[in-house]
């Protein structure tokens, strides 16, 4: 009995510590199952909602894969009738393509900021608005100070933020909770049939606060992530990255 009380107390303390460390408060609406492959790397085994996730890509194809993965994540967070903001500075997103990743493209408001500085301001303002279900920002450079401002805004509002950095000058230290790198994998087709098959991604969680960096190979099929248990995956070192 006493052990039970202690365990409960420890759990409460841990969640308080998590909140202080920028992993957000644990809320009931978090869907463990929907994001099941990725939760394991995070403290407490739960994908943090109220956090900034940073994505880095260098190739146009990887940028597209990253956009796809972000769209899939946002689609999981979106509730019926809610809106998401997609802020960029000359974004290439094609709304018709988003529908394949479980997100209604008309639920997204696109903002094309004239300058990168203004884009950062808009991202911060958007992250302060609790009414949004997610905020996606496409910017090249993100300094430590700016990232901390975004992280603080998120901790207050609880709106998940996804920052996509395409070809940054350097992979500098930022205050974001997690850093991801998504690269495309050859699609998996059933029994070697011709055609492209489902999108497959190599998802690398490079940094995560208080968690274990990990990597997954998943495919996107039937509006869900499915792990690939195939043999033809090319190891990371052999592919030309960057």
């Amino acid at each position, binding site marked *: 009995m006493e052990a039970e009380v202690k365990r409960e107390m420890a759990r409460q303390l841990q969640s308080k510590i998590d909140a202080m460390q920028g992993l957000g408060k644990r809320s009931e609406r978090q869907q463990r199952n929907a994001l099941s492959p990725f939760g394991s790397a995070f403290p407490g085994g739960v994908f943090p909602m109220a956090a900034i996730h940073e994505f880095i890509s260098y190739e146009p194809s990887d940028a597209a894969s990253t956009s796809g993965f972000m769209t899939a994540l946002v689609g999981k967070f979106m509730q019926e009738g809610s809106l998401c903001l997609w802020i960029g500075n000359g974004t290439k997103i094609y709304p018709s393509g988003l529908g394949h990743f479980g997100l209604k493209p008309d639920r997204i408001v696109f903002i094309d900021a*004239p300058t990168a500085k*203004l884009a950062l301001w808009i991202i911060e303002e958007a992250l302060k608005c609790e*009414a*949004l279900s997610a905020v996606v920002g496409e910017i090249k450079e993100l300094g430590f100070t700016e990232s901390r401002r975004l992280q603080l805004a998120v901790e207050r509002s609880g709106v998940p933020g996804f920052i996509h950095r395409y070809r940054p000058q350097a992979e500098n230290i930022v205050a974001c909770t997690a850093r991801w790198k998504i*690269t495309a*994998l050859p699609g998996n087709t059933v029994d070697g049939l011709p055609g492209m098959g489902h999108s*497959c991604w190599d998802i690398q969680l490079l940094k995560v606060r208080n968690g274990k960096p990990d990597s997954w190979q998943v495919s996107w099929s039937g509006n869900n992530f499915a792990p690939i248990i195939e043999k033809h995956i090319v190891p990371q070192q052999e592919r030309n990255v960057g």
Partner: protein
Amino acid sequence: MPRYASIWFPYLLAESVTRKRPELRDGPVVLASRQRGRMVIDAVNAPAKAKGIHVGMVVADCKAIFPDLRVLESESGKGEKIIQALAEWSIRYTPFSSVDLPDGLILDTTGCTHLWGGEKEYLESIEAKLGGYGYTVRCAMADTIGAAWAATRFANPRCIVKPGKQKEILLDLSPEALRLEASVLERLRKLGLKRIGDFIDMPPSVLRRRFGAALPLRIGQALGQEMEFVIPVEPIEPYRERLCSMEPIATAAGITIALRNLLEILCQQLATDGMGLRQGIFRAYRIDGDVQHLEIGTNLPSRNPNHLFKLFEHKIATLRPDLGFELFVLEATDVEPVTDEQAAIWNAASQNDAKIGELLDKVMAKAGRESVSRYLPAEQYWPERAVKKAMPLWEKPVTPWRTDWPRPIHLLSRPETIEVTAVLPDYPPMLFRYKGKTHHVAKSDGPERIEQEWWLADGLYRDYYCVEDESGARYWLFRSGPYDAGRPEWFIHGFFA
């Protein structure tokens, strides 16, 4: 009960000249213009009138009798301009002032006169002000426009007709006081009806048969039985608030306070009417006559003073106060009813909409209106035209999004040419070079032929292929046109996730 003041300028044109040339004021002055080869008098001043000179006389005859008569050229259309300017000037006495051509003004003084201490003081103030400018003025006040007009021109000076007593004042006046046409007046005179009292009590049907419909109508208007409308010189905006300052305001802090006060008042007014602001203008009148304005727009009707203030806030710095502003005017140029106020208490979604609306207002105010867009599916296959912007931003899609054909997640705004090696015509390429890099195609899908919509544009069809290179990167390529016309061009158009 409405009250109207009528102002009459008996010597409007002549005095508009003499007030600028005071040396002429005491002598007879006439304005004349050339008509059918002779100079005919258009306007006279008071001394000329006293000598018996009237409008329509020939200048040569008058000159023969009064050699010291000053004759000046009259300008056509000047009278309307002056009277318009005077009507605008008189807005200081009432918000509703209108022009009564050719030489008068009508003011709707309802609820205004107590600010001057009474109707008598009100008229005295107007007479004194206009007299100071050099105009001879006759004023009167009555319950109806017709009675005020008659009293100004035909009753004692500064005649104030008590409420409901229009008839008494009209009885002794001549029929001209009813603003009738010359032919009707002529007929009345012939029949010996020299005073309004002689026929005012006759049944309207009798008057109408004898003198036409105008006479009973004018009687009705003078007595207040018929409605009469005039058009104000400056239409009254329902949502406009003004704030005058005693001292010129030249600091941002002062302007902020003025703006906040005005927003507070305006939003209260909007709230009582159940409306919300969509577009607003904040005007600042500088003491040297310069007018500067700030404009804002909102996505959803709003009456939240703090939110509206935020939209104005960063624009305040663009105002140039120099010596200071003396008047601030805030106007809601576009309002819309706020319907979901009641629902908001129950429904979290509409409250969220309001919050997002406020956020987008802020973004639009800073980054420009075009920067924010939402897309809806368009019923077209050509990829560039398959999405359209939602207008307005909250438009709902009428057709579902199609996911039956593969569409890339990144689309190049302009397809880029690539070099391609294809095994056979109508086969997907074997390898392609894009930006100096060779990609070997491992897997492919297609083709998907998309034709130009001939009613929109001319051009070749496109055969789209989805291809995957050896590393797994996926591209959307197309061949423009058929093979038989020489070497067709190949393009890259998008990237799949």
